[in-house]
């Protein structure tokens, strides 16, 4: 190793300099993206270790789910499959990303307990790991959208580009949510099951399997649901729309709120995490 300046670490309980430490944590965590990436990748490969298809089971199981639900619900809702299935494909894949990210967020610190208690590592690495792991999963599922669009001849327009800021928004929300939920769930062990049941409810109220226009005059209020708003910033562009200003404003506010909340908690309680896990 090259010679280096001797690192000096000073901690004074009378002057904890919390904001400074939180910023350093964030910078250190992002600088260790290679570690987060290696951990995220091994999370996926370990899950499918020894299987023939490997991570493509992700793709296959989503495809099977879409096939089954698509035809059933098209029948139930008396809708045309060529109209409904592409929409369901986009919805369900985005929903899976969001819901998996939230579920992972609740355990991101408690699952890393052994590492947290062994070495001083920026906690933000664990949040980054959640985001990257879900990005890998999404990368296995998103191509299905292309396949379905091709089969059913769904036209794509320039609005598609709007999905990129939408995806960025999801990533930022996931990172902030991981920090926040990771901490809260480490401290209060009742939160993960609560989050679990809330997400189950969110699945039904967030227009995943039904279309927003089906609720009639309630439709303008849907962006009040953070899951709907954030999901719509990607779904609408993929479906050839923009989502509208209200959706984007709502999504930005929700994500902004999550980020602010996560930052406030992180600054205040970062030093306690090692005692909580």
């Amino acid at each position, binding site marked *: 190793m090259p010679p280096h300046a001797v690192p000096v670490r000073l901690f004074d309980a009378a002057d904890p300099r919390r904001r400074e430490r939180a910023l350093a944590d964030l910078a250190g965590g992002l600088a260790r993206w290679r570690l987060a990436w290696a951990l995220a990748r091994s999370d996926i490969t370990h899950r499918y270790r020894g299987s023939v298809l490997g991570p493509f089971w992700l793709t296959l199981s989503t495809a099977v789910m879409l096939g089954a639900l698509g035809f059933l619900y098209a029948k139930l809702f008396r809708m045309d499959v060529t109209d409904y299935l592409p929409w369901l494909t986009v919805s369900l894949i985005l929903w899976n990303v969001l819901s998996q990210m939230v579920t992972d967020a609740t355990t991101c610190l408690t699952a890393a307990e052994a590492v947290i208690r062994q070495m*001083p590592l920026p906690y933000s690495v664990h949040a980054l790991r959640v985001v990257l792991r879900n990005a890998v999963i999404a990368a296995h599922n998103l191509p299905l959208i292309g396949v379905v669009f091709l089969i059913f001849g769904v036209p794509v327009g320039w609005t598609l580009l709007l999905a990129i800021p939408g995806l960025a928004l999801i990533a930022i929300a996931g990172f902030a949510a991981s920090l926040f939920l990771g901490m809260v769930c480490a401290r209060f062990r009742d939160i993960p099951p609560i989050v679990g049941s809330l997400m189950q409810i969110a699945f039904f109220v967030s227009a995943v399997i039904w279309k927003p226009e089906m609720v009639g005059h309630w439709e303008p209020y849907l962006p009040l649901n953070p899951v709907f708003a954030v999901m719509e910033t990607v779904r609408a562009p993929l479906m050839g729309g923009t989502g509208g200003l209200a959706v984007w404003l709502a999504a930005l506010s929700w994500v902004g709120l999550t980020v602010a909340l996560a930052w406030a908690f992180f600054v205040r309680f970062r030093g306690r995490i*090692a005692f909580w896990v």
Partner: protein
Amino acid sequence: MALIEAAGLAIEFPLYHHNARSLKQRILASSRLRLKTDAENRIVVAALRDLSFRIADGERVALIGPNGAGKTTLLRTVAGVYEPVAGRLMIEGEIGSLIDPAAGMDPLLTGRENVVLRALYRGMTAAEGRALAEEVAGFAGLGDFLDVPIRGYSAGMNVRLAFAMATAMTPEILLMDEWFLAGDAEFMARASERLARLVTGAQILLIATHDMAVVRKWCTRCIRLEGGRITADGPVAEVLGPEEEAEAAAMPAS
């Protein structure tokens, strides 16, 4: 230049995931113990209380004391895992920690891949990690087993790998819990040699152990912790008393 300096250092563990009320009633009633309630009326264990010490270059310090005295907690605090609730702690120097050999290791990855992973944990690149793996391979003496997933390793092999990894990164301060004694005699001899080399420079070894033979052989200074406080601090011979024949005879050959 390495230095550990603590002044009035205190660590308290809140007991979170217990039935606080009943536990409180049961224990506080009787206790002159280290359980107390803090300002917010939570039960906390005072793991370390008002520690002040200074460890400078070239010192090899043994932390001794009964189980639960706070030895490992002190190691973790020095490592930067726990933030003190009171007091001041200053550390100068890169830290290598051997507190829990399995932490940060992935049992499904091979020994070599684990070295690379550990390098990533330390903020190095994968290429630097692979270079490190070569160095570790030489010292750990695992031979072909380095390319076998470590879940098949014996405890001793794990120790070899962890020890080789931690010391290959040439830390200025090496923190060690006593598990490394699980190595075999031949490895212990090499480890001992490496540690000696490590601490001849401007470096510090801080080791928690129950084995007085280790203390006498490797350490220059001894800190005795009891109930989270320092009850003795000084040269090994002074803290432990003169080496007794019986004690020496009772020790295993390692």
